[in-house]
């Protein structure tokens, strides 16, 4: 069966903040309304809604249920939720449109990374019997990976600092970004280690945020956007989580997903990589075979604003916007999930 042509036709994001006092409904409602207005459609035009979030971000079971209040689910709607980043909700929406059941889907995600100890919360993703009771911090797990990469010569501390310096500089052009800076690579290398070999700027900035995108098929997409961002390939893969059971100096799941998504078929102008740690950006570039000519994370990426469970969908929004603006013709959006780049979703989008 031939796949349908599906594109992102609009995006909306809320500027990042920390210690937000807003509820998830209060921040999602205006973002969704803004997106509908931008695309020029009504709620009733949406055939399918899909939400990405995680209960552990807010410490409440069924926390996503409240979001149904934000989307105006009346009369009743066709809707689903993933306990994952919104990028996976986008994948489900893409599958739904592929079945031919609907033509337009709205995908949204939210995450308050600053309402709890995010480093501890994310480490509850580990083996509950053998690993989680040891309370490994999420950052510390990434530091183990960074150490392995440095020792193996896959990355250098200078390269890591270069990633941070570039991201902090690019963040000035992004209203969504939280952390911004103009430090030189040497400035950053002079900073103290926080979790050796990681320095503070090697780790993502936890923020509260939310975002939404509209997907549409074929002619509907052409009607709704001047230059839709057509999804040419999308795939996700997982690796083992076991610390000793996989190579920490490469990401085979990212490599497979990139191959399935057809990354190497042509030049990638812009790649929005969801890399919460500087060395992970370098690992992802290697895994996907991205060349020097690809502009990585012009948005500043997750390093400057990482709303957990929304940061992956933010990469889709940023990559699609670069197509809308005509700044790029072929882009890559990526989302990672789990400790140490365990799960990776890769999507290639093109302008027409």
């Amino acid at each position, binding site marked *: 069966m031939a*796949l349908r042509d599906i594109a992102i036709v609009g995006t909306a994001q809320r500027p990042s903040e920390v210690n937000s006092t807003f509820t998830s409904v209060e921040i999602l409602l205006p973002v969704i309304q803004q997106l509908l207005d931008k695309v020029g459609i009504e709620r009733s035009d949406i055939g399918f809604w899909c939400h990405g979030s995680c*209960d552990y971000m807010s410490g409440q079971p069924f926390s996503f249920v409240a979001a149904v209040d934000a989307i105006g689910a009346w009369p009743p709607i066709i809707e689903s939720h993933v306990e994952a980043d919104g990028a996976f909700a986008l*994948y489900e929406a893409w599958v739904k449109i592929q*079945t031919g059941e609907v033509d337009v889907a709205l995908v949204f995600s939210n995450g308050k990374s600053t309402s709890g100890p995010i480093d501890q919360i994310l480490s509850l*993703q580990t083996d509950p019997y053998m690993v989680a009771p040891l309370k490994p911090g999420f950052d510390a797990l990434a530091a183990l990976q960074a150490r392995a990469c440095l020792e193996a010569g896959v990355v250098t501390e200078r390269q890591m600092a270069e990633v941070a310096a570039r991201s902090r500089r690019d963040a000035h052009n992004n209203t969504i970004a939280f952390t911004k800076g103009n430090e030189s690579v040497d400035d950053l290398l002079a900073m103290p280690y926080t979790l050796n070999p990681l320095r503070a700027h090697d780790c993502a900035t936890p923020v509260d945020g939310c975002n939404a995108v509209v997907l549409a098929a074929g002619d509907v997409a052409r009607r709704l956007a001047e230059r839709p961002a057509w999804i040419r390939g999308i795939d996700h893969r*997982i690796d083992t989580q076991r610390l000793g059971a996989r190579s920490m100096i490469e990401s085979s799941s990212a490599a497979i997903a990139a191959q399935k998504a057809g990354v190497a078929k042509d030049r990638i102008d812009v790649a929005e990589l969801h890399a919460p740690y500087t060395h992970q950006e370098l690992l992802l570039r290697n895994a996907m075979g991205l060349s020097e000519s690809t502009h990585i994370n012009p948005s500043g990426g997750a390093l400057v604003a990482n709303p957990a469970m929304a940061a992956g969908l933010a990469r889709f929004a940023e990559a699609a916007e670069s197509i809308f603006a005509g700044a790029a013709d072929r882009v890559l959006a990526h989302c990672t999930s*789990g400790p140490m780049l365990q799960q990776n979703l890769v999507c290639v989008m093109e302008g027409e």
Partner: protein
Amino acid sequence: MAELCAVVGVGQTKHAACRADVSIAGLVREAVDRALADANITIADVDAIVIGKAPDSLEGVAMPELWLADALAAHGKPVFRVHTAGSVGGSTAIVAAQHVMAGIHGTVLTIGFEKQSDGNAMWALSVPIPFGMPVHAGAGGYFSPIVRGYIGRSGAPKHIGAMVAVKDRTNACKNPYAHLHEPDWTLEKALETPMLWDPIRFIETCPSSDGAMALVLMSEERADKHAGRKAWVHATAMRSEPTAFAGREQVSPVAGEMCAADLWRKAGIKNPAEEIDVVEMYVPFAWFEPMWLENLGFAPRNEGWRWVEDGITEMGGSLPINPSGGVLSSNPIGASGMLRFGEAAMQVMGKAGEHQIDGAKKAVGHAYGGGSQFFAMWLVSSTKP
């Protein structure tokens, strides 16, 4: 036009209050191994895995599918996680089927599980929200007033709930995997059980279980080449609405009515009560059987309880409901919806053993969740649409 999808393998665990003999991973793998054996394939033949469970707080593992990748031999494969409250087992199966219907994968393994004994379900489902009034007590406290509303408006006699419960507990004795095997219930004894959340009696409530269900789904191309009995997916439907708004109908939610109507339309069903041979319905509190009979368009409004009283929903009746014993006999929350979907498939595959409804050709799996606000259904058949 979407491709066809068939269930070619079904596997479930023995459900129990505490499966202390297995880890979470072991529990999941038990269902997966049975489903793969039933489909006569190995895990290497699986292209993608779609997994669902209810709130992660039930076991205290955030996004456990990540850690479970090892137990599922999923390295290098897609693993996709769904969570739509109590309906999750149903919507997970639907998302899995859509991977096939969209032509993306040829063989998909889907799993629903819950290991409630690893945590405290009553706590996990009732974390008090600051500034509110913590007067309700678990799901029973939430649904009891709605049941009272149904009894009031339908004029149903008080023993209907107990009748449903006795039927399901009796049916469960024919299902080796059911959590509760209690053969000695009579209506008299059932009516003597205490009111927990008046008007809901002890007998009318579901247990808290550890358990998992797994299904193997295949595209038409693969299923046609596959030996063995199949359940063809004729239609799937999902609908959601907000938890509460002024004037919301909670006894027969509009989302449930729309979900069923959509299912009947897609599957070309004109008269559900006549054309459907068996229903696996999500009934965690016994009174929901007559309520859903009406909501799904089987029985006329306020008449569902009469169907129960007349024995229509018993295994020998014209519309058997929950021959497996249903949620009232096994309730691993995240698996409960998929158990309904899988048991419906088993019926049309002729694999339900002692609780088989003879000659079942069309069966419906139903699940709901949240405050009666998330609905998922599928219709499966022994023949292609």
